[in-house]
């Protein structure tokens, strides 16, 4: 066997989640509107993980689904809605009516969350930011604190590091060694990955290491930060993967009606998560016409010249 095969981090999703996600863990699932790790979230539901703390800047449909499945007891987040698609009713029922039980919430602003990952990734005790002066957020969340600037600039708010037991992200492609390339909106995935004790990355494509090495600047998460690479085409659906397929906006809008009804959301999870053996089965079950409507036309980037040493004569 070559070194390349020995060092392979490829495994299937069932194995990766079973091996790296334990009950009671703190799990970050990042992806800002783009590359949301839906397949991995569904696998966590399917494996009946319990008592998870989920960290996610923008809890959206995926978080609503994981809440309804009873996976999450604590949520660390900064935006509690689904963008233009509206309210997350399972989340609202948990917070407003404690139905079926209360939800522990730890709340920051977006930049506060980014700084928390950055602090953990860089091994810092806290990270300062110029937000929160006069806000009620520090009163709601006493982990948002003030320190005195040792260089005389007054006081500044700081946030604590956020080190997840496991960070899970989805990306366009990786090689089997674990070098992960992504493009388009990349959010806080790099910071979250470096912050995590263990890292699972699901990808649309597994490519030859030569492909990665032809464009190393596109590798946002290098192999040494990754524990598992999972080949998972469509793994971000119904969110999107730039250059692969677009977001299913219709499904996002439909979610409002599904999540408004506690019975409906649970039967949705039965049908689309528990009754699906894996992601391939889910993608197979997505309506062909719907899937076809999400395909994108090609728009290639211009190539860049990395250069190489001239051959010696």
């Amino acid at each position, binding site marked *: 066997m070559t070194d390349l095969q020995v060092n392979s981090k490829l495994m299937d999703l069932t194995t990766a989640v079973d091996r790296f996600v334990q009950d009671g863990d703190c799990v970050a699932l990042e992806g*800002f*509107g*783009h590359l949301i790790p839906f397949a991995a979230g569904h696998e966590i539901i399917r494996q009946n993980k319990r008592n998870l703390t989920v960290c996610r*800047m*923008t809890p959206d449909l995926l978080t609503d689904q994981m809440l309804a499945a009873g996976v999450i007891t604590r949520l660390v*987040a*900064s*935006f*509690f*809605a689904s*963008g*233009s*698609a509206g309210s997350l009713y399972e*989340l*609202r029922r948990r*917070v*407003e009516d404690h139905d079926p039980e209360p939800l522990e919430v730890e*709340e*920051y*602003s*977006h*930049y*506060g969350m*980014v*700084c928390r990952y*950055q602090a953990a990734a860089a091994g810092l005790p806290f990270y300062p*930011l*110029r*937000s*929160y*002066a*006069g*806000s*009620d*957020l520090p009163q*709601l969340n006493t982990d948002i604190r*003030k320190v005195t600037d040792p260089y005389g*600039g*007054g*006081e*500044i*708010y700081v946030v604590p590091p956020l080190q997840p037991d496991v960070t899970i992200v989805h990306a366009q492609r990786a090689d089997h060694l674990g070098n992960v390339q992504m*493009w*388009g*909106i*990349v*959010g*806080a995935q*790099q*910071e979250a990955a470096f912050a995590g004790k263990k890292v699972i990355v699901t990808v649309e494509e597994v490519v030859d290491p030569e492909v990665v090495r032809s464009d190393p600047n596109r590798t*946002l998460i290098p192999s040494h930060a990754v524990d598992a690479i999972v080949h998972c085409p469509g793994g971000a659906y119904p969110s*999107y993967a*730039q250059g692969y397929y*677009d*977001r299913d*906006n219709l499904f996002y809008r439909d979610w409002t009606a599904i999540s408004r009804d506690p019975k409906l959301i649970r039967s949705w999870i039965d049908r689309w998560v528990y009754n699906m053996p894996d992601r391939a089965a889910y993608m197979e079950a997505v309506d062909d016409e719907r899937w076809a409507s999400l395909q*994108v036309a090609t*728009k290639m980037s211009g190539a860049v010249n990395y250069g190489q040493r001239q051959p010696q004569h």
Partner: protein
Amino acid sequence: MNNINTVRGDVTDSLEVTRFDAEFLVTVAARELAGKRRVFAGVGLPTLAVDLAQRRFEPNLEMVYESGVCGAHPEGLAEGIADSVLVSGSESVLNMQALFGYVLQGGNVDVGFLGAAQVDRWGNLNTSFIGDPKNPKVRLPGSGGAADIMASAGEIIVILRRHDLSALPAEVDFCTSPSPVRAREKDPNVPVNGFGVSTVITPLGILRRPDRYGELELAEIFPGVEFDEVHAGTGWDLKVSENLRTTAQPSQEDVALLQQQIDPDRFYLR
């Protein structure tokens, strides 16, 4: 333009809009962007306003989205700040640390466009909870980037779809994004960069804060609106600007652009 009605499928749009039409709010908001350079836009009416302003008044207006996209040149209407259409053809896509840290907190954003459930007289915004935050009646989306944008953008423009006592209370139930007035009072030793809210556009008129440590006052009133309606819908004793004027009707060119090119499916124009 002679023909003031345009027909699209079975729907007829009128280029003669009134203050009750979304087109009115958007054109008013777009005019506020004249002379501005780099604008942090959210989804919905701000998306339309920024697009219209770029086509009509400020070709160099740079659209920045909190998803990391700077200098967006979308080929279609974005359904959200992370829409793929904003990425293709854009000038730059940054990670979150670069966008919030370097671009926003570094002082490079002139205008932030925010929505809110509640705005008070100082321009404090609530996007978090209605009722007691520990046991809320309504769980709203929360800060997202709003607390960060308020702290670091040069100024903030707010668009409200309602002008009533619940949207403009004497005091917000929860202060997600504080004005410099409140920041100075509660955290006097923490430096604050931004001016805070400069402009609030409501369905009745425009409120402005001329002074960084001052309060909102009525600067423009929409045609056909009575003072009583504005005062009855505002939770404090709203001052009226010495230079109060009546807001100009949107031009038919602006309305036509919105209806025919920017949002032909009336995705946000509702």
